């Protein structure tokens, strides 16, 4: 590809990206200015249900089912567990995004930012997304994941606690962020 074609393609791609970024997200149509910060928007929802998910994924259940169920039924049961684990992982990611959005709101409303800190937050977010993808693959391959999901849920919960203590008075009621 010569220089001229490269310039043309690059300009077209940049314009297309700009047009896509200028489109208002569907839920934001009709809303003026920044999104309003409702406390519920930042609540970690899924990590609250970890005790139930932990029981569902416990190794005792696996032993029990492998002893009593037929191979076909056991296989189906394992598949269901995998599916539930993936859905829960998806929920944890959603929780993470909510808290991440709180971090951005904090930055947006701060009179002064630390550029290094902002770049690091963006980088950590990117890394989380990549790692999440890999963990999801492992879950899909049927590797045990209960303890890792527990760690993730705990982590998101403690993140919520810390942010709750330092929030800007965004009408986040006490206990709202903590699972």
């Amino acid at each position, binding site marked *: 590809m*010569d*220089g*001229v074609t490269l*310039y*043309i393609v*690059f*300009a*077209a791609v*940049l*314009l297309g*990206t*700009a*047009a896509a*970024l*200028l489109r*208002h*997200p569907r839920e934001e149509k009709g*809303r*003026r*200015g*920044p999104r309003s910060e409702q406390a519920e928007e930042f609540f970690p929802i899924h990590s609250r249900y970890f005790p139930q998910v932990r029981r569902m994924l416990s190794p005792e259940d696996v032993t029990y089912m492998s002893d009593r169920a037929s191979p076909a039924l056991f296989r189906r049961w394992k598949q269901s567990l995998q599916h539930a684990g993936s859905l829960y992982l998806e929920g944890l990611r959603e929780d993470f995004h909510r*808290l*991440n*959005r*709180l971090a*951005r709101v*904090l*930055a*947006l*409303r*701060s*009179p*002064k*930012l*630390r*550029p290094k*800190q*902002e770049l*690091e*937050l963006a980088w*950590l977010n990117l*890394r*989380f997304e990549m*790692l*999440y993808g*890999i*963990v999801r693959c492992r879950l899909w391959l049927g590797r045990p994941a209960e303890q*890792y999901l527990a*760690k*993730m849920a705990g*982590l*998101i919960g*403690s*993140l919520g606690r*810390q*942010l709750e203590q*330092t*929030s*800007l*008075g965004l009408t986040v009621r006490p206990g709202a962020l903590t699972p």
Partner: protein
Amino acid sequence: MDAPQIGQLVGAALAPAQLAVCVLAIVRRLWRILPYFTAYLMLLVLIEGARWAVILGAGMNSPAHMWTYWMTQPVLLFARGAALADVCRAALGLYTGVWRFARTLLILSAAFMVAFAVIHMGETARVTSYLIFLERELEFAVLLSLLLLLVMSRYYGLTLERPLDGIALGLGFYSSIVIISSSILIGSLNLRWWAFSLARSLAFVVTLGFWAFSLRAPLPERELPEMGTVESYESGSQAVRDRMRELNQRLMGLMK
């Protein structure tokens, strides 16, 4: 009517269209949120008027017109840069922390593109192609800066409201057409001069359409955001960062 005549006709339609958009901007009191952009619209009308005065006096293909065109083009280009800076300030300026951060990034990206243009200027031989090359690189700086603004706005959950969205789209659209047409002209694709002029004139008519559409109704009142303190940002974002890092480390542990 042949193609070059169509080009001249479109060129002639530009002056009244620019005047109409300029009047619309004044009626909507656009200067209250975008003073440099409003000044750019006025400058457009003045320069287009001066160009037409030369055309009527000396002719379309006269050296006087070519000289006037190429000497006024850099003025308009820098005015467009100032207009884009105005859009950036209007979009993020209310959020002082984010605006300071964005301003640094925007200046760095624009400076990089200008430096790139200056370094590669020696590659062109003729004065005209030298100016076209410089213009293309500066338009690239405009387009990149616009994209950076939009990415940052989206990252922080902000959307460009009317009239900023239409004005930004117009600036980006015209810059991309200039980049594409200039690249074809500079390159070996042998674009004719009248086709080059026609493409630009049509692109500018479309751009004026975007701007007029964004100014179709009275401008919405802007609400001042509720700002927090530096301390809450420092402690809050520190907590997020530490937890993200920890979470990433744990996820990394899963890979082992």
